[in-house]
């Protein structure tokens, strides 16, 4: 076996030597034979004749010897590759067109796959990622699977469950001491976080369990920073460890730097600073990750977890109830451990999964359209090369050899195209990642090449080569040795190879219809959402985020401070209006409570989509474009001690009262009827710009507005919050002067407050990431398909015209008008286009439902989109057909007839 391999390798690499040996060996044999014949008394003439006869067979003998050496296949393949490279180099225009077309298609697909790989497939850069599991309570009601710190500690104490357990939570950290915020991406982590992941420090140390104590461990509050932040902030200085870092007004000592490849526990985001939960003053709940002991599986870990779940629940219940959780819902859903090799699944990665897979599918269709064009090119060339192929056939090349030759050329084309496509993707991907980044959710993804990416690209490249190369290869195999003689090297007039080309054009048009329809649906979805009337001008409305804890303002003093801050901001030049509010509309900000209306059963819908609450100052309804339709808005008389009032929106009135005017009714909020004092409804506001947790898709929820100046620590659930916003309507567009003025105004009231400013447009953009990404990509793919289909139709039509020059020449000579000729050419284009439109339309009609969940504001079978796609495609097809048709009409019959 081994000797066989050595022999073959030697045969392959020392080919020249072995060839000359073979020549020599056989020459000597013939020489000997002749001498022997002469010795035996054969006349010299006859002996020489026999030798010559033997010579004739020499080539066959040699070929048989090469076969016996077992390298013939590889050797002739290498020959084919060299030959193909030479052929492709010689016809540069053809090769460039084919390669570029393929590179566009393959590049688009590879770019999307790079994102899919980064988000969903690539394992975390940690020690043995296969042994990481995410531990969560399987609760369909709660999309964010946090577990409380007490639960994580209980799991950790039961050492038979996991080798180690940790938890983490993303957080924006503010490094500024006062004034405008200086935000970095942070993660709060439990003490054994780095140990569980198996991530060492490249400088200093990571955390220990001792660092995660309330107020900090023996070394005080400590921080670990990422390699990225180390480079950015400290320029990679070796003495960064030991320096201090002020986070949220607490001074931390930097104790370590993580390796460059480690971006954090979650794909799609990276971190700058990690802090132990104990030092952040938070509750320490977060995503829980466990490391399985060797031999353990997620299933066995899940079973073990569920066995001890009642004990864990019992141990953590008192503290949970004390913190205000409902005992009946505490840890009642089964715990489970699922593989987290690719990182914690968070709402961000879940959110991208469906759109990304849809885009991957669309990119695949683009590749198919590109294949159609390349197939046309290869076919046209194969026809032009009939002569060459036929001569090779006559010289003894087998059918299989010719077919293989053509296929090798296709593979070479697609291989080079894929390489170029990969380069395109590497350039394009960072742009896509920027598109999915927002101020508060900066996306960051590991886009570097790995074997998955290379295998995917190689696979696509081979598939495309087979798609566009098989038919031409089979055609090459059908070439007869006498074809070259028969045609005398001149191309035959006729439509013999029309069949395949027609089918290709129909297919391309059909696929393009699907892509253009998809583009239309996604672009219109985004446009609908981006231009939705929210009642306010999103670019001129700025939200100023404040946290009164910065200035240690106690609840009783807060309401007065809200008003002083509001007035200070309102007096800044360029500010038209300023109001105080608790939650920001159209943002992840939310305040949801059960609401009861005196004397009525809460509607069923309210159970799944609880009314949103907001506390706002009197000017809110004017500033945020939600005019009062009945009753009144809030006013100066609505203060602490005065009767409690509420304003509801139209949706709330419809859901809870079934009628338009609820003014005069009373409501309470909170889990029980006695959770809050009654509030009287004094006004009805228009549905607009109301708070929604997941964004505009959800539509306007039932909303109850309460008056922020009535908030009081004496009323349960109605304490003035430390987190408050000033909503600002600017007179002009946002400017540095305006933001500086606002920050200064806040500072003049309370110098310790730190200020975060974002426009409403920024908030809303953050909720439209997937829609924007889908619109950009689908639009891009749709345009690409249009261009490719247009080029395809142009190419095929122009080719057909060039083959029918003589015919058109005769027709024109016989009196056909320009219009006649153009009609003749376009007729075929129209038929093909019509077929393609019908097929593509039908396919889109059936498949568009698949993306229904990603659409908004229109049906998947939106007639306008379908008609629009058909019109655009028809226009492109007619233009692509008309250009060569015009050329056909300008043929000079005299020249054509002379040439014939």
């Amino acid at each position: 076996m081994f000797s066989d391999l050595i022999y073959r390798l030697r045969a392959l690499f020392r080919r020249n030597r072995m060839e000359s040996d073979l020549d020599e060996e056989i020459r000597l044999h013939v020489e000997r034979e002749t001498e022997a014949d002469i010795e035996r008394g054969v006349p010299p003439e006859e002996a020489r004749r026999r030798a010559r006869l033997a010579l004739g067979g020499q080539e066959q003998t040699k070929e048989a010897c090469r076969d016996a050496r077992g390298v013939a296949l590889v050797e002739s393949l290498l020959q084919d590759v060299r030959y193909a490279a030479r052929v492709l180099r010689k016809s540069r225009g053809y090769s460039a067109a084919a390669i570029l077309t393929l590179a566009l298609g393959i590049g688009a697909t590879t770019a999307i796959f790079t994102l899919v790989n980064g988000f969903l497939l690539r394992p975390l850069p940690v020690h043995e990622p296969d042994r990481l599991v995410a531990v969560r309570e399987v609760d369909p009601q709660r999309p964010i699977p946090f577990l409380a710190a007490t639960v994580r500690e209980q799991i950790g104490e039961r050492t038979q469950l996991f080798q180690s357990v940790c938890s983490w939570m993303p957080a924006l950290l503010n490094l500024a001491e006062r004034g405008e915020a200086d935000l970095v991406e942070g993660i709060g982590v439990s003490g054994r976080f780095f140990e569980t992941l198996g991530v060492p420090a490249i400088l200093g140390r990571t955390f220990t369990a001792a660092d995660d104590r309330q107020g900090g461990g023996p070394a005080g509050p400590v921080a670990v920073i990422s390699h990225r932040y180390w480079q950015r902030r400290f320029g990679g200085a070796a003495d960064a460890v030991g320096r201090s870092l002020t986070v949220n007004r607490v001074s931390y000592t930097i104790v370590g730097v993580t390796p460059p490849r480690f971006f954090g526990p979650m794909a799609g985001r990276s971190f700058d600073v990690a802090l132990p939960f104990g030092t952040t003053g938070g509750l320490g709940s977060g995503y829980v990750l466990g490391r399985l002991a060797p031999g353990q599986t997620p299933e066995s870990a899940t079973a073990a977890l569920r066995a001890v779940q009642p004990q864990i629940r019992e141990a953590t219940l008192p503290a949970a109830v004390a913190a205000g959780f409902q005992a009946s819902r505490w840890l009642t859903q089964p715990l489970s451990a699922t593989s987290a090799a690719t990182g914690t699944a968070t709402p961000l990665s879940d959110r991208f999964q469906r759109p990304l897979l849809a885009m991957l599918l669309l990119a695949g269709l683009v590749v198919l359209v590109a294949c159609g064009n390349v197939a046309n090119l290869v076919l046209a060339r194969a026809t032009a090369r009939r002569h060459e192929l036929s001569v090779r056939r006559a010289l003894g090349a087998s059918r299989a050899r010719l077919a293989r030759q053509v296929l090798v050329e296709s593979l070479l084309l697609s291989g080079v195209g894929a390489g170029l496509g990969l380069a395109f993707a590497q350039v394009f991907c960072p742009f896509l990642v920027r598109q999915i980044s927002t101020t508060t959710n900066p996306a960051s993804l590991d886009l570097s090449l790995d074997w998955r990416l290379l295998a995917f690209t190689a696979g696509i490249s081979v598939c495309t080569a087979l798609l566009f190369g098989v038919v031409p290869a089979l055609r090459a195999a059908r070439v007869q040795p006498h074809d070259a003689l028969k045609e005398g090297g001149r191309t035959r007039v006729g439509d013999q190879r029309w069949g395949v080309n027609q089918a290709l054009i129909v297919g391309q048009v059909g696929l393009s219809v699907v892509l253009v329809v998809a583009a239309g649906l996604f672009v219109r979805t985004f446009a609908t959402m981006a231009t939705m009337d929210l009642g306010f001008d999103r670019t001129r409305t700025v939200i100023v985020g404040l946290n009164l804890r910065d200035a240690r303002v106690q609840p009783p003093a807060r309401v007065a401070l809200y008003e002083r801050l509001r007035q200070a901001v309102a007096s800044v030049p360029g500010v038209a209006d300023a109001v105080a509010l608790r939650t920001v509309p159209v943002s992840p900000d939310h305040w949801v409570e059960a609401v009861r209306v005196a004397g009525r059963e809460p509607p069923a819908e309210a159970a799944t989509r609880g009314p949103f609450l907001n506390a706002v100052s009197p000017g809110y309804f004017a500033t945020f474009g939600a005019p009062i339709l009945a009753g009144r808005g809030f006013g100066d008389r609505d203060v602490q001690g005065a009767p409690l009032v509420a304003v509801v929106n139209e949706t709330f009135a419809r859901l809870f009262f079934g009628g338009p005017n609820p003014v005069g009714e009373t409501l309470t909020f909170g889990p029980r009827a006695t959770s809050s004092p009654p509030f009287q409804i004094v006004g009805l506001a228009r549905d607009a710009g109301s708070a929604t947790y997941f964004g505009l898709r959800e539509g306007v929820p039932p909303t109850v507005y309460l008056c922020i100046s009535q908030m009081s620590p004496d009323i349960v659930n109605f304490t003035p919050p430390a987190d408050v916003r000033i909503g600002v309507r600017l007179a002009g567009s946002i400017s540095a002067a305006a933001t500086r003025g606002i920050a200064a105004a806040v500072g003049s009231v309370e110098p310790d407050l730190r200020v975060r400013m974002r426009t409403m447009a920024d908030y809303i953009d953050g909720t439209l990431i997937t829609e924007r990404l889908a619109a950009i990509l689908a639009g891009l793919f749709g345009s690409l398909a249009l261009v490719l289909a247009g080029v395809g139709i142009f190419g095929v039509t122009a080719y057909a015209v060039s083959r029918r020059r003589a015919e058109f020449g005769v027709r024109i000579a016989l009196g056909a008008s320009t219009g006649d000729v153009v009609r003749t050419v376009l007729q075929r284009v129209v038929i093909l286009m019509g077929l393609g439109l019908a097929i593509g339309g039908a396919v889109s009609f059936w498949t568009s439902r698949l993306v229904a969940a990603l659409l908004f504001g229109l049906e998947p079978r939106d007639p306008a989109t379908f008609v629009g796609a058909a019109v655009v495609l028809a226009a492109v097809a007619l233009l692509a057909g008309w250009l060569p048709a015009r050329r056909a009409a300008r043929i000079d019959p005299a020249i054509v007839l002379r040439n014939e």
Partner: protein
Amino acid sequence: MGEPHLDLPQGTLDLLILRTLELEPQHGWAMSNRIRQVSSDALNIQQGTLYPALHRLERRGWIRSRWATTDNNRRAKFYELTRAGQKQLEQETTNWQALAAAVAQVLESA
């Protein structure tokens, strides 16, 4: 030309080559010459069959080759049996004899 000629059953050529080389290293032409002589001109191995077979056997590691000079001082490629080839020859010989005996028995009894 009327030369006496027998068709070789599949696989027999390998056996003949190995057997010929068992006596001493040989070059191709000498081998075909020897087989012809020993078989009283009944077996005439053509170069078109002989050389591919030699290359195949070499690939399998049963024979190896080297360039050397012949008795009358001419260069030629000599083939010789390897240890694996020796084993193969023994096994093939046994097989062949068993087969030949079986075939003969069937032919006689018919």
